[in-house]
């Protein structure tokens, strides 16, 4: 790839979308002002920015609450999902016995279970309930992807490991886990986004009990018809989701770039 091409691709990848964004915001601002649209129907971007600055302290506090729950749910989902998948890979029987329940956990809509979890955990520990709900949503993609990945190791390599008398542990650590790494990372990318969605949905259901997360700020702003603040909180949620996605994409690229087809840059 020559420098002209790479300048071109940077231009098309960053400058063009950014320019479209600026134009869009400009049209939004202009049409709201010229059309005299009330603030509680659609606030102009400038009002949203002002609200973000004015409520910066409380919104950042809420961002931190939601971020903390999301990250904890994600880490627990990764540890639990990978751990359980390893257990499955060691015993087909355990897998057959437990996998259906993992599926039940996955297919039951989190909004439907949320009230029950809240009652069980108690309204005095809402944050724990939110964490459990976010975890339930984030857990399954990592479990199913890791299970698939651990099973996808090259069968000739498996034979080779057997031929050299490798132990179960060696097969797992030297063959199955590295083979599964691209699958695990793909699962984590899905789960990262789902953990955030789970946290937001759980906060909605928990309602005023949390009183702190970004989702609750949105509900609260809605009650007060403070639409600019609603948009500001929504904007922060988007930024959080985008950051999680790109963070995990970066980790994936770092870990796979030397060997996996998905991460290797090709020249055509």
């Amino acid at each position, binding site marked *: 790839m020559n420098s002209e091409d790479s300048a071109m691709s940077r231009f098309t990848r960053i400058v063009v979308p950014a320019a479209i964004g600026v134009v869009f915001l400009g049209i939004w601002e202009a049409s709201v002002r010229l059309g005299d649209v009330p603030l509680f129907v659609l606030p102009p971007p400038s009002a949203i920015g002002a609200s973000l600055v004015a409520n910066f302290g409380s919104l950042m506090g809420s961002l931190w609450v939601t971020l903390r729950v999301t990250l904890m749910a994600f880490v627990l989902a990764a540890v639990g999902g990978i751990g359980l998948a390893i257990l499955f890979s060691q015993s087909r029987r355990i897998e057959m016995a437990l996998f259906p329940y993992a599926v039940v956990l996955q297919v039951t809509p989190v909004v439907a279970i949320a009230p029950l979890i809240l009652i069980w955990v108690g309204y005095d520990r809402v944050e724990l309930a939110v964490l459990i709900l976010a975890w339930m949503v984030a857990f399954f993609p990592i479990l199913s992807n890791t299970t698939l990945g651990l099973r996808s190791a090259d069968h*000739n390599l498996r*034979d080779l490991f057997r031929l050299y*008398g490798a132990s179960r542990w060696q097969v797992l650590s*030297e063959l199955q886990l590295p083979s599964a790494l691209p699958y695990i990372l793909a699962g984590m990318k899905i789960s990262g986004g789902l953990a955030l969605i789970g946290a937001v949905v759980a906060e909605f259901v928990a309602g005023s009990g949390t009183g702190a997360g970004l989702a609750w700020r949105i509900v609260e702003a809605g009650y007060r018809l403070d639409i600019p603040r609603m948009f500001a909180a929504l904007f922060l949620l988007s930024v959080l989701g985008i950051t999680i996605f790109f963070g995990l994409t970066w980790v994936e690229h770092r870990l796979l770039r030397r060997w996996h087809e998905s991460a290797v840059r090709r020249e055509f």
Partner: protein
Amino acid sequence: MTSADAPRPPLLTLTGVAKTYEGGTVALSGVDAEIRRGDFVSLVGPSGCGKSTLLRIVAGLIGASAGHVRWHTSSGARPADVGFVFQDATLMPWASVLDNVYLPLKLRGIAFDKARPQLMDALARVGLADFAGAFPRELSGGMKMRVSLARALVTDPPMLLMDEPFAALDEFTREKLDDDLLDLWRSQRWTVIFVTHSIYESVYLSERVLVMGARPGRVLGEVEIGAPHPRGPAFRRSHDYADHCAAVSAALREGVRP
């Protein structure tokens, strides 16, 4: 050096070895064969004749349904060290060339620093000393195969089992690797069992060719090659070579029932 020096003691005797897979497919029926120490034996035959199955039975990767595999070793078992080379290079894509070659020693608990001279030596023997840090995807098909070969010989095994190792390579690379393999075989005194579907390759490489037929898989006959070493392009052009190829070809045709 010729194959006519002292008779080699047997290493392995197969008696009535048969394999029926689940579902009733008969891969092998009643194979008798003897492999001698230092032998270079090719198994040649059409696809489905069970040559790979036979190799896997010898390696101990699968069991025979009937018959005996008898090892003439002090332990009566397969030598602990057996190099195995698959049709594709079967490298770990996430590991460098050096780490791939290190695998057999690593699985044995040998520290990397201690293994390093051995690894570099194995890579030098296949002509890849300069590529230790490369990753498999950065190598050509022939080079990957060389890494696979280096991995198989890093433990200095007395025996090498090769399952159509060069079948997927282009003709030129294949002939080069055939020559390199023969050089290694002559210097290392391995016992080699080499599975191939190429008559020419089997004749060029082997001391003996076991000709196999399909449905059911069985040994149709044996062709003694016994041409002197080193074998080079001159051997490929000789009448001897053409005669042996014709003999193997004739034995193969006998196995094809109308």
